[in-house]
């Protein structure tokens, strides 16, 4: 098992840096000048040139990349071109905020999707199933930022119940929780819609298997059969979805973060691109891609735990 993990990590490293190279190449094509943007109307050729030289942007791209790489290895991610504050803490904070938001959504999502999935699998082809299917299909097709806007409109603007933006309050405060409600609901909604379909179809596959028939003929109650025998076997595809959700949190929720002004990593990346803040863009890309590979690795290890057959197969080969 350990060799597997180490092999995976070693294989991922060149891929992660491959991504940073890709991002770097795109950045060289990126038009616009952070020096000009920062100075606004006070820009003069001399000051612009000074800034560009100070930031090392007048050097050829490969040189810049190697320098950046060299610094990264020593855990120095530089300073933001705009705030002049160190990049690493900023990226770490935003990453944490995104994970914080996503964590709630991922944990609470199954509370909705599992019952719905099981229910619609059990009551297949009944009116309830069709109703749920239609609702779920609509839920999957709703653009996330539209759902977010609707939630903002209903609960924030019309009813005035919940704050619509930002992330306020101390870590464990009610205020913080109030700010979490709307964004988490939006994310949960989208995720639960997708997950219910997956759970439904995998439950349908499992329910027709022989061991379920055995369990029923043993006289076990239907609930026990469903929850204790069918569900664990049906869970694997749902686990894949959880991996997908984690990857979405790592920056894919960019638009949601913009709508709710949530200080997450997606929004940081977006604003850095707009501002041409190169160090931040590069650090974000690195952080996001490391995050994605870590999630993939965890999901694959998790497969081994959930389904022992996978675990043993990989050991035999």
């Amino acid at each position: 098992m350990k060799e597997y993990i180490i092999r995976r990590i070693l294989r991922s490293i060149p891929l992660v840096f491959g991504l940073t190279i890709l991002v770097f190449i795109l950045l060289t094509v990126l038009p616009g000048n952070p020096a000009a943007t920062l100075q606004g109307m006070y820009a003069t050729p001399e000051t612009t040139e000074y800034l560009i030289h100070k930031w090392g942007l007048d050097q050829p791209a490969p040189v810049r990349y190697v320098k950046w790489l060299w610094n990264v290895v020593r855990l120095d991610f530089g300073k933001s071109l705009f705030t002049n504050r160190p990049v690493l803490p900023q990226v770490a904070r935003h990453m944490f905020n995104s994970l914080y938001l996503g964590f709630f959504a991922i944990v609470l999502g199954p509370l909705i999707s599992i019952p719905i999935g099981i229910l619609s699998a059990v009551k297949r082809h009944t009116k309830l199933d069709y109703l749920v299917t239609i609702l779920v299909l609509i839920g999957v097709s709703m653009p996330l930022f539209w759902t977010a806007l609707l939630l903002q409109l209903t609960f924030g603007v019309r009813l005035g119940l919940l704050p619509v933006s930002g992330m306020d309050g101390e870590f464990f405060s009610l205020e913080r929780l109030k700010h979490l409600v709307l964004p988490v609901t939006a994310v949960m909604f989208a995720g639960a819609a997708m997950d219910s379909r997956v759970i439904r179809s995998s439950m349908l596959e499992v329910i027709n298997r022989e061991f379920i028939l055995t369990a029923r003929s043993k006289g076990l109650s239907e609930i026990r059969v469903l929850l204790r025998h069918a569900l664990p076997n049906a869970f694997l595809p749902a686990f894949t979805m959880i991996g997908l959700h984690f990857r979405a949190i790592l920056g894919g929720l960019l638009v949601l973060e913009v709508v709710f002004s949530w200080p997450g990593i997606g929004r940081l990346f977006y604003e850095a691109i707009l501002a041409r803040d190169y160090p931040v863009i590069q650090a974000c890309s690195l952080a996001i891609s490391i995050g994605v590979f870590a999630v993939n690795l965890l999901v694959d290890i998790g497969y081994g735990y959930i389904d022992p057959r996978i675990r043993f197969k990989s050991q035999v080969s």
Partner: protein
Amino acid sequence: MIQKTAKADFSIASAEELPERTSRLREIYDDFVASKIALLGLLLVTVTILMAIFAPEIAPYDPTKPLSLPSQWHSPEHILGTDHLGRDVFSRIVYGARVSLIVGISARSISAIVGLTLGLIAGYYGGRVDSFIMSVVDIFMSFPYILLALLVVASLGAGIGNVILALGVTGWTGIARIARIQALSLREENFIQAQKSIGCSNGYILLRHVLPNALAPVLVVATLGMAFAIIGEASLSFLGVGVPPPTPSWGKMLADGRSYMSLAPQLSILPGLAILLTVLGFNLVGDGLRDALDPRLRTRTLG
């Protein structure tokens, strides 16, 4: 000797009684049409396409010209009211279909071409080529779709062509994977082996035999991915890096309407509804295609 056992009837049934031999294509069509949900999806998609094509005839006003008082609710002259600059909302939504569909279809086509090529080559040739291409796929997949598209579109600049390019060039990974799996299994098929044994070049085999047989699942993924492309365009426009004004884009309309949420929420709700229905349509069609093409569900013919 006359047997007393029941006579086995070996007479061939008349032509009307034999079950009809249908082609695979007809089977797929039948399966698809049987699903009412898929038909609904097809209806939605068709309506959207028609709306896009006949926009000049359907839309009552020019979508880019401010004509009346801004932010009005619906009235006899303006069915859906006006936006914050006084342009007719209904016309903007009708014309917005053009942008969404053009971007969606073009971007998806680019993704399909790139994905098919890379996927089929990787699956067919295997070995180091496969590893290399899969590494590239992994690199692209390690970054969320929108972020990569955002970076590309910011680098290339505004404009609908760049948006299409950005979405196309970042969304090919799903198609590549499916194409690769198809190529991997097709490679072992007898008829492919036969082609190789008589000396056909790999290129010929790929184009003439592997490609057509690999198309079906790829088509499903391509259709289902239309949803992502359309939402991607809407997201990019929402963020301000998509299709530039005054061209109407549903995503941009959503963004513009945000500032007026308390006074005129319909400015944001309506374009979102349009996106929802279009995406729903493509999702339903994609699901229908996938179910119709699923060989496990094939029950009928002998043919």
